[in-house]
């Protein structure tokens, strides 16, 4: 338990730093901003209590908000992702179910394809909520949607890269 707190605390710090110092400075053609910090919510163990998941997600979002000057935007989006995470996990459950364990989810848990689907769904939902909440208007719907799509692709790529590094370690 204590081990887990230290482990995930460390991941949180690393991901926040990577997000703020590296990813927030990556801007392909002004359209794309990858959000890698979302990986933190993806890798928490399956049996994390829902309320804890929500709270951790909210705090993570709030930290990103504070340092990038976007009031509550990320907090809202990450909390939303944390809320639907159990449902998504249920939808794409492997045949023999999840092994209930304290160890977190990773690219190695249930295969590459499973992780790709899992992260793509949650990243897309997160970006959709985030970008539309930021703009808060329906004019230019397709333009915003394009930004959601492109940023999602890049976020997923970066998340997969991060996962591969984490597994190789």
């Amino acid at each position, binding site marked *: 338990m204590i081990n887990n707190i230290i482990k995930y605390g460390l991941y949180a710090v690393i991901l926040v730093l990577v997000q*703020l*110092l590296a990813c*927030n400075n990556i*801007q392909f053609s*002004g*359209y*794309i*901003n990858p959000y890698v910090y979302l990986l933190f919510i993806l890798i928490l163990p399956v049996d994390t*209590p*829902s*309320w804890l*998941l*929500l*709270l951790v997600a*909210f705090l993570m*979002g709030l930290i990103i*908000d*504070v*340092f990038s*000057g*976007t*009031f*509550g*935007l990320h*907090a*809202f989006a990450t*909390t*939303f992702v*944390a*809320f639907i995470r159990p449902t998504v996990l249920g939808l794409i459950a492997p045949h023999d179910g999840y092994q209930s364990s304290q160890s977190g989810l990773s690219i190695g848990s249930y295969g590459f394809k499973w992780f790709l689907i899992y992260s793509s769904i949650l990243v897309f939902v997160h970006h959709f909520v985030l*970008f539309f*909440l*930021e*703009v808060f208007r329906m004019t*230019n719907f397709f*333009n915003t949607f394009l930004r959601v799509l492109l940023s999602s692709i890049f976020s997923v790529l970066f998340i997969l890269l991060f996962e591969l590094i984490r597994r190789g370690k």
Partner: protein
Amino acid sequence: MRNLLNFLAKYNHVIVFILLESLALYLIFGADNYHNIKFYKGFRGISANIEKSVSNSRYYFGLKEVNDRLATENNVLKERLAMLTTGKEYSTWEVIDTSLGRQYCFFEGEVINNSVNRQKNYITINRGQKDGIDKDMAVISADGAVGIIVASSKNYSVAMSLLNIDMRMSARIKSNGYFGSLSWDGVNYLEASLSEIPQHVSINVGDTVETSGYSSIFPEGVMVGVISDYYSSGSDFYDISVRLSVDFKKLRHINVIGNRLLEEQTELESSFE
């Protein structure tokens, strides 16, 4: 009672979810002023310091370019000085003298945080209230208009960039003097759009767009950009794309302009609204 408790136990995560999301929404929409929330102010110091060191290291690698730009600006100023001393009239940069002295006061500063990839971009500047910077001052760079100060703390201030979908600015076409409203549609950080120019006016690609001075924030005649494209839509007005003269991606040195008579003007105007 038992049922209620069971219900709460079963749906506790929904309740936590609703509470947290309401809090997030409150943070987004309840904060009408950019920097109003108390806890945010506390963090601002830390994050501004981090931003400053990151920005400093980035600055170091761009020094050569900054040097070149300063040299060019220097040249331009020297030319202007030469024109002034020889008695020639030079009307592009107008500083109006009134009985109160200068109408506009200038402050120099540096950008320490900036973005172009959001829909609502803001710029953080390393000058604040202790340097005399306040809300509703104009921010310009050597190339042209940059934004408007929306909040300032003791040491820092935050400006709403032209690249913000909430930004509206009065701008006019230099060649014919017709003015319209300049805004950004959130797509391309190099281009803004100018609306409300009636279709009977003849305009050309390459025409200069500058500030009109009607907003009382920007002085008259600050460069904004050039017309890069225009077409007539079904309405009575043109859709004009303006290529911004400022490259927001490499913004560093800026000037803040305060209008000493802003308060007087708005006070007088407000009595007719």
